[in-house]
């Protein structure tokens, strides 16, 4: 931790501010990496952890990561925007991912996408008004044998017909409703 104090003289305050934003295990992960050789190589792993925790990478979170890891914020945002996997906006409770890989495409993924956009009333990259669903696309989930596939959170469905979309959505919205009661 030696080189951190040498760059900032109010390190304790900085650290405390970061702890308000990031959970403890992520702070610990970053700090423990600082002592390793090539610690800068762990930036992507850190961002994965932040996204897994919050569902997206917000500006304040990236700022905290930059501070703790002692790298420029520009580098953190540069990396975060380069990789498609990282999201910069908050998302809905359930993430729907339509596979737009080749196998799914030739088996009619475009029809599934259309149906999802119609049923949810949103475009790719958007979230429904009630915050329940976000619609995303992905390039191949590696389950091409079941094409076309749709993934909701971690559950893969396939082969899916446009007609089955409403049944799948129903399952999740019902769960939402009952949890709100």
């Amino acid at each position: 931790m030696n080189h951190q104090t040498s760059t900032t003289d109010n390190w304790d305050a900085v650290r405390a501010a970061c702890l308000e934003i990031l959970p403890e295990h992520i702070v610990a992960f970053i700090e423990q990496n600082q002592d390793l050789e090539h610690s800068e190589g762990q930036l992507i792993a850190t961002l994965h952890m932040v996204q897994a925790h919050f569902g997206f990478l917000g500006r304040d979170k990236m700022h905290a990561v930059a501070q703790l890891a002692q790298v420029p914020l520009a580098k953190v945002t540069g990396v975060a925007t380069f990789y498609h996997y990282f999201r910069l906006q908050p998302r809905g409770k359930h993430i729907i991912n339509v596979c737009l890989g080749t196998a799914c495409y030739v088996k009619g993924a475009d029809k599934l996408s259309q149906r999802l956009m119609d049923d949810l009333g949103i475009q790719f990259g958007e979230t429904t008004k009630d915050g329940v669903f976000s619609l995303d696309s992905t390039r191949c989930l590696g389950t091409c044998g079941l094409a076309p596939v749709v993934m909701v959170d971690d559950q893969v469905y396939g082969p899916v017909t446009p007609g089955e979309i409403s049944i799948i959505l129903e399952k999740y919205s019902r769960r939402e409703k009952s949890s709100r009661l």
Partner: protein
Amino acid sequence: MPNPVTDFFEALTDRTRTRLAERGDAQKTIIQIGSATCEHAAGSQDVLEEFTKHIQASGRDDVIVHKTGCTGRCSKEPIVGISIPGRPPVKYERVNREIVHKIFTQHIQKGAPLPEHALDNSLDHQYAFEFVFCQGLRCNHLGGLKESFEQLLRQHKIPEDQVRVSTHGCFGTCSEESVGQAAFVLVRPSKVVYRVKDQTDLELILREHIRGGRIVEPLRVTRKPISQDFFDLYADVSFFSAQNRIAMRNSGIVNPESLEEYISLGGFKALATALSKGDPEWVINEVLKARLRGRGGGGFLTGQKWKLATQNEEKTRYIICNGDEGDPGAFMDRGMLESDPFSVMEGMIIGAYAIGACKGFYYIRAEYPLAIKRIQNAIDLCRAAGLLGKSVMGSGWDFDMEIRLGAGAFVCGEETALIRSIEGERGQPKVRPPFPTTRGLWGKPTCINNVETFANITAIINYGGDWFAQVGTEESGGTKVFALAGKVKHTGLVEVPLGTPLRDVVFGIGGGVQDDKALKAIQTGGPAGGFIPASMDTLPVDFGPLAKVGSIMGSGGMIVLSEEDCMVDISKFYLSFTQEESCGKCTPCREGTTRMLEIMERITSGKAVMEDLDKLERLARLCQQTSLCGLGRAAPNPILSSLKHFRDEYTEHIVDKVCRAKKCVALVRYEVSPDLCIGCTVCARNCPTEAISGNRKEVHVIDQNRCVKCGQCYEVCRFDAVERK
């Protein structure tokens, strides 16, 4: 001379044997359930839960569940295998909770298998014995043994439904034989391999084994065929027996989370051999002899790459396993990482030893959470067992590894971009040379190899480089795994010797085109590859021949396209992929793909003129010749190859404004046929834009100005009254 590595290995296998013997699984009924991403998606976790419940309820402690990886038979998942001691194993397809109940109560409890659920109807023919004759180069040289055996069976009036005779590619038991000395025969389900020389041997087998039920010990060999364990379970299913499993020899039979099981199937013997010899050069020479070419797409000779890395003065070296699998539509690497992580790991440790690396990295895409989990588990177990870390297997050589995650950028599969990504940077490629073998990760010599490349290494060490070489072609040794998908009957992972005709893969193993439509083309190599028209389907799969017709071998994606697919549309699809994935570093790729995509959009929407085709071709060549990395250089391949083989489809779109496959929305029109419409109103109720008008029991009409061509009406009309033109 005592060797610490050999001692270590013996102690390890002894320990494993004792522990497995304590489990006493040999006397138990085993329920084998696949557990991989695709199996889970198909519902295998429900199946597992249901079996567990049934076992508990029945109180039987001689029935156990065995979790394995995935065999690669995607369209029939979840697959369940039932092995009752002393009986041939039975496999079931598309099992659900209901079928579990039937299997448990009837097959497991009462010993009556259920033919109606058997995988590929494999129970329709149950043989007491199956004799599998090796058709490999060396065995086959003896010639005619299989035919003589069949004749012998007829002479002795052995009923045809009792004994089956079949063939298979090289077993790998021949590495110490010279050509034409003997041939090998595998007997299922007896798990015996015979070395046969002549008619007398065959007669002996008939008398003793078939008639007497005794194993002919003098003819028996203990050398194990390369995929025997796989074969024992699956040889009666033609989808599998037509394959030659080397890289995937354990996929679907081993528990991917158990180091012990991997060791019991011969695991870490190859590493022990390599380390005990104490000669990295020997390893490199075997791999060179094997003519193993990288399976990640480039096809560079692996032995050559390793050699280059060792020629560097710098002693801090790295090895990387490329598990980014960017081709959208390919899943070979996921299959191997999830189903047999230890094989990939062992191959990688051997590679590390060969090049003298101190540290290894798995670069795995974040979209593969299960693969990540299983590799992490494998690393942890190996470290605990002394197979990683300080003094690997007691050899005195230190080596360790860790996982780094990708984050959804296709270009990071390219080796220099991948290195930048591990360094924590934006994954933009660098100019080569210097190649990573000279200056790679953190400026040190680095070898990057694909998952499947590593999965082949143990087989090369165990069975010999010469043996591996003769499985493939003159040009490249071994097999290749393909992810067969698209409009094919049996989708899944298929491993065949290099040089196998495409036809044999698509029709022989894949069962042909879905719904018996006509084959239009086969796409290999993903977004960097091209199309092989149906007329060329006898082409052998190998790096050279595929490149010659304008495609590439690529990493193993194989998409079957039928008459219902539009070549212009699919080419546009690939281009939109590469356009989106271009890292933007160099202009020909960034701008070139964008401009080409605009032209493709014009063509598919009927707004293009013939000059656009020339422009497209010019741009494609420019992008191909002047881009910095493989992404940009290969991005035009789908366009150029479809222009080469399917130019008439382009002209139809441009001149006649027709898409014969009816895929390009702008060129399709929906109309209601007055003769067929009975006025049921279903189409009107389903149209999202209220473009259809008409009263009940009257002919309906589509307002073309409001129609968005979604095709709903076409799908829902039960009287085929909506026509697509």
